[in-house]
């Protein structure tokens, strides 16, 4: 009841997660059509079995440094479904689905700032590291949140 399942992925060394029920599928790197004039975080459009899906560069959205072209062979598309629209979140690497419970949960620290502060629900203290719970709704609101 107080437990939740988060689908996790890696970005710039951090571990993020979104509720597993929001994730529709995970895809290897897809050809992505750039969208000039779009908000910065929009990486482009991908073809998801005939459906045009907007891809977000999650690094840019979270204000993390850009990907190092040399060491990252591929970006992964985490397709999430939100308000009846499918979006793709571009991440470095996909992680496991993890079960977390409320006992492990902490609010984001007050000292936290930058774009992440708004986009993170909080952190789950895992044994070895922190799992940051992303607020997918806010992440996808690229026009409002910058």
């Amino acid at each position, binding site marked *: 009841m107080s437990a939740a399942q988060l689908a996790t992925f890696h970005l710039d060394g951090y571990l993020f997660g979104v509720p597993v029920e929001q994730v529709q599928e995970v895809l290897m790197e897809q*050809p992505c*059509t750039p969208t000039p004039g779009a908000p910065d975080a929009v990486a482009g459009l991908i073809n998801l079995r005939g459906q045009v899906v907007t891809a977000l560069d999650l690094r840019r959205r979270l204000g993390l440094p850009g990907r190092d072209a040399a060491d990252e062979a591929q970006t992964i598309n985490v397709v999430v479904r939100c308000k009846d629209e499918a979006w793709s979140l571009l991440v470095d690497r996909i992680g496991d689905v993890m079960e977390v419970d409320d006992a492990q949960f902490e609010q984001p620290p007050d000292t936290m700032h930058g774009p992440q502060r708004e986009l993170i629900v909080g952190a789950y203290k895992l044994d070895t590291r922190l799992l940051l719970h992303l607020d997918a709704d806010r992440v996808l609101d690229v026009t409002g949140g910058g």
Partner: protein
Amino acid sequence: MSSEADLDLEIVQEFLVESHENLDQLDQDLVALEQNPGSRELLASIFRTIHTIKGTSGFLAFGRLEKLTHAGENLLSRLRDGVATMTPEAADVLLRMVDLVRAMLADIERRGTDGDADVDPIVAEIMAVIESPPPAPPAAAAAKPAARRRTKAAPKAASKPAALPVEPPAEVVAEPPVEVVAPPAAAVAEPPPPVAAPAEHAEPTDNRSSVSESSIRVDVELLEQLVRLAGELVLARNQILQRANVLDDETLGRACHRLNLVASELQESVMRTRMQPIDNVWAKLPRVVRDLSSQLGRKVRLEMEGGDTELDRTLLEAIKDPLTHLVRNAIDHGVEEPAARVAAGKPETGVLRMRAAHEGGQILVEVGDDGKGIDPARIAEKALANGLINTAQRESMTDAELLRLVFVPGFSMATQVTNVSGRGVGMDVVRTNIERIGGSIDVDSEPDNGTTWRLRIPLTLAIVPALTVLFAGQRYAIPQVNLLELVRLDGEHGGRALEDIGGAQVYRLRDTLLPVIHLGEVLGVAAVETETSPVIAVLESDGRNFGLVVDRVLDTEEIVVKPLCGALKEIGLYAGATILGDGRVSLILDVQSFARRSIRVSEAARELLDVNVAESATADEGQLLIVSVGAERHIAIPLDMVTRLEEFAVDSIERVGRREVVRHRGAVLPLIRLSDFLGTPVHHTTDAAAGDATSVPGVVYTVRGRSVALLVSAIVDIVSAGAAVRSDIDDAGLIGSAVLHDRVTELLDVRAAVLAADPAFFTAVEDEVPDTVGATP
């Protein structure tokens, strides 16, 4: 006339389908209401349903049905308004009423009449329930809603019982039943004529499957999804076919062929589910025509042809208003009054023709009248008066071109302002609406013989023919409907390069100046070096032409339009996205918004422009003084705005505050350097050159003794403006440009230049204060 009978029959069928559904809902609602007697929501819903049936049956002259539902409605309104409460008796009588309504509908379906069923017992029962509700409400309260439901019979008397001393209050309560029965009684006597014809007509078809069974209602969402899926299938098929051609496998080839056929047919069938006959929109027109023609004292016969032509329901919805507008317009401004028609040797009754047909993959819809037509000369007159065109343009315009002016926004705006009656009011809106769905509109008119408006509408919105172009390595799609032509920008082989007017780029296309924008600039993408020469796609939107420079043209193909997410829609550059044959996503350019963005003619600027053009319209007939500013720019000044040409000694120019003045013939003359006014960047060098000289040429403009001087680099020539071709690129200080002596020449906004030199110039002049030469420094 026979089409009218068909129309009636169709309305009846629609009424039946709708009513059957409504009744099913009604049964559920009534039962639910009995369990939950207090629910206002349920009551309101039931009331609406019965009200709809009553309204339609009245309209279709089913008198008995109307009488029955009217009584039911009375009871329901009381329940809804809380005057009476739901009792088992009330529910019972309402349910029985529904049963009777159902039986009568079945009669209508079988025999075309509402039968001979006796509605009076049920009506009486309903009245009984109304009159003797167990938790008897006070008589006065009961009288009120009942009175509200009354028809014209005695509205005053009912709403103000006190004013009618003859009627004791008690009778007011008792009256409704009497009043309800009376008017339909007349109606019952009347129906036979309209009812008889369909009755005969329907007799032999007794055993056909009933209307309500042979068609079902499907959620539009579901249909949309089917269309989407069929679109996907077609895309997948395209990819498989491409691959199969490479593989050259016979079995695969055969399977592909079949897949090809099935997919095409499936797509077509699915598309058809969204198709509806244009009759659905036309059905409302006879009424519009009848009302409007009687209101305006015209006699009009409506002829409709091709009403079974089908088109996508979203498109149907989109053309509803434009069509109605055209019909209204045709009656209002097209068809003359009967007397005038007779005088003109035409039959008294005008004809309004609606025609719809498939034509070349599009739907052609015509609205034609045999009225007085549009006189191109009058359009020209008005357009000249509004400064939409100048005399030179008017000379070179054909009648067809003049007619097309009715679609220009400024044209109809001006008609409204000056209140000149004539065609064109709102035509720009009609055109915008038609263009929004990828269609086009044209007009054909012959004075005294009538006008025909021609709408071309795509079959469906989901699939559009498009041109794919390449820019900076990405492919973009441009809807074909916006595309006029393609021009290769080839500097070496006779093609001309782009020219610059005050920072705006233009291309000379057959002696007209085409404003040109670069796709890269609009998208904010840096251009990439290419080995091929760029191409201008000449596009049209909102009646304006402009060129869009792209790297390369790839192909024309049918694309399936996919919606974009909100964040991408908002930026206003893309109309959607599509998936091309290789599976990559490509963006569809929003040409309308490109036109708006690039040409930047705000309404205010346009008005300013109109004023200026109108002012200088007379000058256009005359001659233009050509001066040069800086090394490159040629500026034209209407000769009648030039009082004299002067050479000013350089050392006589002095600075007063931020302005420059010159002492001249004993007076002080405010002056402005055109290079400063127009912001020509090269003026320093030329000024330095001028500095070597001892004098600067100037153009002096004097009105009632008040003068200003415009300093230029050189006086070049005087030319006749008659041959000038105007283009309305507006930039600060300019009112347009023209090709004069094979050179792009900018037309100076003299008024603005004069004001820059002396802000009080025109006010002082218009105040008619006789002033000595020159302004007080």
